[in-house]
């Protein structure tokens, strides 16, 4: 009793806010420090593929000024085409780190831009915890807010995309997502145009930062629409939604990459439709307040229905006629889950775009995943306007996370919020120290005994004093949940440490004595390219490595991870999948100097180009169905083989030859072994006529080939090579190579 009074009394408010501040700072500290495993174990570098482009763009931004960044035409990617970078990226991430860089300069802390980029995601995860606290506070109370902040601080579902070094758009996007939602809820609750405008401003920041802003543009209208359907339309809803939409849409169109999309594409039509609907509903509501008649009201109601149907029909008509662009393939494949695999192989080829398996939910969210439905149920029980939002968000995000692994990221915040609501409800009940008044209990007991004389049935159900007052049951439940919470921390730390903290640039393996062995072939090869090739050399590789080559090797690439031109990627795929005689003209026409392939056969590194080869073939087949045929790479029994049984097309493809060139020289004769595919390779390795091996890294992971120049005597390369080997002169071969190289440099 006294403790309860102490905790809720006005006189201890300062103490409580101090406690809150301390808890939030601790949570931020935990969020930041649990993301530093990879920096401490390895080094402070950028991970993965996409972040390398963001890093390169950030470097460009701090080396040049903002205006040249905005108008940046990058001629070192997509070689013959180039990329209008300013109009094809979301600049929020780079501008954020650029601003931080300049602020730190101003404060005379000259921090390298790389370290800012590496540490940006952990720093923003602290802010995400704060935003989640504010959001959950609007749903329930401070206690639930603190729990939710603690959950999101360490939940692996969010950590997986925001470890130190993961300099991707999601690093700041989740903070912006939660903060925009918080401002929306606040605007809706207060009915204030000011909060609506702030919501629009953060929505603008979100649009600048991440393509996932489409999620917000559909969540907020959906929430408003459901509220209207539930008969909860209020003037507050009108003020909040319209001030958000009018300002937010106009603001989002300022980003060049978004442009006119908010009025032209189907993804944004829900927001526009609800905007129109709210005008009608508000007008009708106004008229209804002026005119009293039940029949007139029903007339108006039918007017709303007709207007709604008419506007949807107009929308469908506009979409069909082509004025409004239909859903983009990436978005559409969320609804028709088989669509991407059939029509757009490049979307299906990304591993993040696969459906999620059950264990992933538990792995990423542990105890939160079973508290989540309970939390949603609690929201149903106290169904205020803002709880409807959590329910809708929970349902939509669960669906999307089930369809695509990558969207687990948007599910995690709502799971944390709902789980915190559920858990804090439990704790509210079981940590309540209040005892019933003894007099009341005695009276109740007396009444009960009296009753018992009449009928001996159902004793337990008849007590007048309802509640949990036994210390034992309170201790048991609170103890059990405390145990779960500690277990949650252990699980999160374990998952973060073991699964999500490995930079893909360096591969770590353990030696038998337990010490760590680092395989650093990628950087070895990229640095070879950086130091030993001319600055304007063009490198052809599969698109996965485009950003890393641009970032680490600083050379021009043909295709990269920004897969905006499918045909160009298919060209590279065709060059990799065809015979040398077909590929060589393609390489010549694109001025390719070096070809880079990843080969994991020696080390058992499974993410190599032979395993990705089928996707290259499929993407190339989509564009040139007559020249590249997937069927021809399979044996007559339908097997994909690289050993003696491989098909002729497979053995003659450039990718096969580049991967296994000279590989058998590593082994005793006839013993060449591919450790990824687990097969013995043919005794005679492939020959390469149009390419020459330029560099192979220590563990044979990265192999770089130089494209030969045209033959001096005008012969084709095959006959030239045959002639050379017939003359068996090694000297002349070396001389010829030198001559070719000289030609290239001059």
């Amino acid at each position, binding site marked *: 009793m006294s403790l309860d009074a102490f905790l809720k009394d006005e006189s201890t408010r300062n103490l409580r806010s101090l406690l809150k501040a301390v808890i939030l700072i601790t949570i931020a500290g935990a969020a930041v420090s649990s993301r530093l495993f990879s920096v401490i174990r390895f080094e402070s570098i950028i991970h993965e593929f996409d972040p390398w482009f963001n890093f390169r763009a950030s470097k460009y931004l701090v080396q040049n000024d903002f205006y040249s960044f905005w108008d940046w035409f990058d001629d070192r990617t997509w070689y013959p085409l180039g990329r209008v970078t300013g109009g094809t990226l979301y600049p929020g991430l780079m501008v954020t780190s650029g601003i931080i860089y300049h602020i730190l300069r101003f404060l005379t802390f000259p921090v390298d831009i790389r370290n800012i980029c590496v540490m940006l995601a952990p720093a923003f995860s602290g802010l995400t915890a704060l935003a989640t606290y504010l959001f959950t506070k609007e749903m329930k109370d401070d206690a639930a807010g603190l729990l939710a902040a603690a959950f999101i601080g360490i939940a692996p579902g969010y950590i997986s995309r925001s470890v130190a070094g993961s300099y991707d758009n999601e690093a700041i996007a989740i903070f912006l997502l939660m903060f925009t939602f918080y401002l929306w809820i606040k605007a809706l609750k207060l*009915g204030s*145009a000011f909060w609506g405008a702030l919501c629009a401003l953060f929505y603008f920041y979100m649009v600048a930062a991440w393509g996932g802003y489409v999620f917000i543009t559909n969540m907020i209208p959906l929430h408003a629409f459901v509220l209207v359907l539930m008969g909860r339309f209020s003037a507050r809803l009108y003020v909040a939604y319209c001030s958000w939409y009018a300002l937010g849409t106009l603001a989002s169109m300022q980003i060049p990459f978004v442009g006119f999309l908010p009025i032209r594409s189907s993804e944004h039509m829900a927001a526009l439709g609800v905007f129109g609907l709210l005008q009608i509903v508000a007008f009708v509501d106004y008229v209804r307040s002026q005119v009293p008649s039940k029949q007139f009201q029903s007339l108006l109601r039918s007017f709303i229905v007709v207007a709604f149907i008419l506007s949807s029909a107009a929308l469908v008509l506009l979409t069909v006629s082509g004025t409004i662009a239909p859903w983009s393939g990436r978005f559409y494949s969320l609804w028709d889950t088989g669509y991407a695999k059939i029509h757009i192989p490049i979307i299906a080829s990304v591993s993040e775009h696969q459906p999620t398996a059950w264990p992933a939910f538990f792995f990423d969210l542990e105890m939160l995943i079973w508290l989540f439905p309970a939390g949603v149920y609690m929201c149903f029980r106290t169904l205020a306007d803002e709880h409807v939002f959590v329910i809708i968000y929970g349902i939509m995000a669960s669906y999307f996370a089930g369809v695509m692994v990558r969207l687990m990221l948007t599910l995690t915040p709502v799971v944390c919020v709902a789980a915190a609501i559920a858990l804090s409800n439990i704790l509210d009940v079981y940590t309540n120290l209040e005892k019933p008044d003894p007099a009341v209990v005695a009276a109740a007991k007396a009444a009960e005994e009296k009753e018992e004389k009449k009928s001996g049935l159902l004793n337990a159900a008849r007590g007048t004093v309802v509640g949990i007052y036994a210390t034992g049951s309170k201790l048991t439940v609170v103890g059990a949940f405390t145990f779960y919470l500690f277990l949650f921390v252990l699980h999160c730390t374990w998952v973060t440490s073991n699964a999500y903290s490995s930079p893909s640039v360096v591969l770590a393996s353990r030696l038998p004595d337990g010490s760590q062995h680092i395989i650093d072939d990628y950087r070895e090869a990229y640095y070879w390219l950086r130091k030993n090739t001319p600055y304007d050399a063009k490198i052809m590789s599969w698109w996965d490595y485009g950003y890393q080559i641009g970032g680490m090797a600083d050379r021009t690439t043909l295709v990269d991870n920004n897969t905006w031109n499918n045909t160009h990627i298919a060209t590279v795929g065709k060059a990799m999948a065809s015979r040398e005689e077909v590929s060589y003209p393609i390489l010549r026409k694109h001025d390719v100097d070096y070809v880079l392939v990843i080969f994991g056969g020696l080390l058992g590194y499974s993410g190599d180009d032979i395993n990705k080869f089928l996707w290259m073939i499929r993407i190339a087949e989509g564009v040139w169905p007559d020249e590249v045929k997937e069927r021809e790479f399979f044996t007559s029994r339908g097997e994909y083989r690289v050993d003696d049984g491989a098909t002729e097309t497979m053995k003659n493809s450039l990718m096969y030859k580049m991967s296994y060139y000279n590989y058998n020289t590593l082994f005793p004769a006839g013993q060449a072994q591919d450790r990824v595919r687990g097969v013995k390779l043919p005794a005679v390795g492939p020959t390469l006529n149009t390419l020459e091996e330029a560099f192979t890294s220590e563990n044979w992971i990265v192999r770089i080939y130089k494209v030969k120049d045209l033959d001096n005597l005008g012969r084709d390369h095959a006959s030239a090579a045959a002639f050379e080997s017939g003359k068996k002169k090694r000297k002349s071969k070396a001389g010829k190579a030198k001559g070719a190289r000289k030609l290239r440099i001059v």
Partner: protein
Amino acid sequence: MSKSRPAASAGAASNSNNPLTILSALPARYLQTTPSRTKLIDAFLLFLIFTGAIQFLYCVLAGNYPFNAFLAGFTATVGQFVLTVSLRIQSNPENKSEFKAVSPERAFADYVFGSVLLHFFCINFIN
């Protein structure tokens, strides 16, 4: 809003359920019951509708070549309209129960803030 239904007109309306007669009675009622400050806001709203309609008509007739310019002008009127309606709703004494946190002065400050933002974005967008 619907709670504040005046009893005076209830008797008159119950006589005829014909929508046209009800609608025709609206303007007179509006002129009678609306405070003059709200009327001023409504005049501004009317002006905004008029401006937006002219812009749209011109766009239909003359084509939408500098599309961003059309959008900037048109969304300026739409946005301003919506913000003004919000101000009208918030400052309406009948809605006091809905907006406990927003006083009329606060509503006006919000309105200014929203309008400044709107115009900043419009001017930026019109190039």
